[in-house]
């Protein structure tokens, strides 16, 4: 029963990972850029919400209404100032420039807020600890369910947006081939900037929940980036629903690892990621050399 409890909570934790991963996945899908400052942007979002709550005492959900457009604007500026130039200069530059940005954000946060861990728990009432007891051994946190529901809704929303709206189609066209997209009247630069704004908005949502579900500190960004990246890769790069699956796999692995040994929470997640990676490469090599039919006893 205790294992079932861990698995259920692992699935719900996967919702959070999908939430933080979908912005990364979107940027990678559209611009073919992995933004190394992604996790730090989420932490920045958490700090902005915290700052407003701390000064006004309002609910983090209300504070978020102000943070969301700020982060969207930041995404736009980020694209125009840094990513746009990086995109045109090969593969090294986006990695290097976003890594530089990550260092800048982390240390600016540190200079403003110091090393202390912060949390939104004090301004969110009983939501931080309320839970439903399904049986005597299975507890489900209300916040975890809320985060999971938001993640599913956000992925659904993004899915419909990309498939059904004109802007969504423009984004998909540009991600396929920016030059051809421009030929049919799409402004690729504007599309990139819009995508970056949307991606960073989803990061703001992830930041809100990062602050609500746990404590956070200025240097917490890299860990979030790695979780997001692992969810994207496990789920298969470029697929939004795959991101949810990847997040869930990661969440379950971490919770089961922690159940075996409290120190293995992170390690179990990372090792699962590496195992998936190795397994996938191994499978691809086997397929490339036509060895699967041989293994199955067929003639190739």
């Amino acid at each position, binding site marked *: 029963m205790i294992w079932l409890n861990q698995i259920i909570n692992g699935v719900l934790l996967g919702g959070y990972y999908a939430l933080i991963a979908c912005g990364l996945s979107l940027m*990678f899908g559209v611009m073919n*850029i*992995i933004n*190394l400052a992604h996790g730090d942007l989420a932490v920045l979002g958490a700090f902005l919400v915290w700052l407003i709550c701390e000064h006004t005492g309002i609910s983090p959900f209300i504070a978020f209404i102000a943070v969301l457009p700020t982060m969207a604007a930041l995404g736009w500026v980020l694209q125009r100032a*840094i990513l746009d*130039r*990086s995109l045109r*200069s090969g*593969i*090294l*530059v*986006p*990695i*290097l*420039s976003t*890594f*530089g*940005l*990550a*260092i*800048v954000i*982390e*240390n*600016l946060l*540190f*200079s403003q807020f110091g090393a202390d861990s912060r949390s939104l728990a004090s301004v969110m009432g009983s939501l931080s600890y309320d839970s439903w007891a399904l049986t005597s051994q299975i507890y489900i946190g209300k916040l975890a369910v809320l985060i999971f529901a938001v993640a599913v809704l956000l992925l659904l929303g993004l899915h419909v947006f990309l498939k059904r709206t004109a802007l969504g189609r423009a984004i998909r066209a540009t991600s396929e081939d920016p030059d051809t997209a421009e030929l049919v009247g799409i402004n690729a630069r504007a599309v990139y900037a819009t995508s970056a704004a949307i991606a960073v908005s989803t990061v703001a949502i992830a930041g809100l929940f990062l602050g609500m579900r746990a404590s956070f500190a200025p240097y917490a960004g*890299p860990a979030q*980036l*790695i979780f997001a*990246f*692992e969810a994207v*890769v496990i789920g298969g*790069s470029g697929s939004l629903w795959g991101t949810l699956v990847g997040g869930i796999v990661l969440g379950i692995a971490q919770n089961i690892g922690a159940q075996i040994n409290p*120190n293995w929470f*992170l*390690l179990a997640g*990372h*090792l699962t*990621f*590496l195992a998936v*990676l*190795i397994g996938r*490469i191994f499978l691809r090599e086997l397929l490339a050399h036509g060895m699967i039919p041989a293994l199955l006893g067929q003639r190739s």
Partner: protein
Amino acid sequence: MTPKMPVSVQRWTPTSVAAIGVLIAIVVALAFAPFVLGANAIDKLITLYIYVIIAAMWNALAGYAGLVSVGQQAFFGLGAYAAIRLSNAGIEVYSALALGALAGGLISIPLSWFMLRLRDGEFAIGMWVVAVVAHLLVVQDKLINGETGTSLRALTAYAANDRRAYTYWMALGAMVLFLALIFVLLRSRLGASVQAIRDDEEAAAAVGVRVLRGKVIIFVLAATGAAAAGALWLATAISFQPATYFGVQWSAYMIFMALVGGLGTFEGPILGALLFFLVQDVFGEVGVWYLVGLGLVAIFFALFMPRGIWGTIEDRFGIRLMPVGYRLRLPDSVVLAAKTEEDAAAGS
């Protein structure tokens, strides 16, 4: 039809012959430093040599093979950790440090098999995950005492001054060795092939370059260099706190030095390490605003000066100190003719 011109390919230029001579003289002079300089100066020089090693190794990986890693601290930490383990097993401490560096490099061989099949950004963060995993695994070892860490106690058997001198010579030797290895490698067929891979992997494969083999050699060399730097850092610091050795700030330093000095040039990372060392000496140890500045400078160079300081100098003045590339020499008559034509065009 163009007539066949007597074009020659030149590797050594008079400048580069002179530069190599000066370099050898400098290294010989530096070897005598422990007899002349004080303890503080020697400690600083050891730090500088370690910076040169990690910058040059990161540059070999990113600047020449096109593999941007933000996880080289994995090898930095593992080199130091392996040295502690070997020393604990009873091996003489300086041998343990050297073997630790080799062990850190050895681990990269099985890793290369799947890491090098990742592309660009995936490789970058994938290496980061490897570093995090290495950190988490090392902390599990009872000998290390978790994040509290331990120290290389066997070193304290040596008198402080002897220890400093031995570590200094080891660091100088390691720096010369790794720079020489890169130099030889870049002048070989492999150097040309990895650069071809960096510029266009498919095209390189199409003309018969063995893509994976070239990458594996550079990856293992870079890992061994980072592991050696970690072991040397342990030799000066003596204490081993996992978070310090496996911290991502090492990647930030490597990127900064290689990028500012000149990515994809031999001399660039040496210049970058020297600049980084001087900046750190002036601004003192790692303040927050200092790191913000580091990040901003890295963004600036990535966007506006991707060839770095040395690359820009090379491009503008055509200087090559180290003969790692090829240059085409046209006969003087052709150069003259082209110049007259140019002048005529400008005049009309």
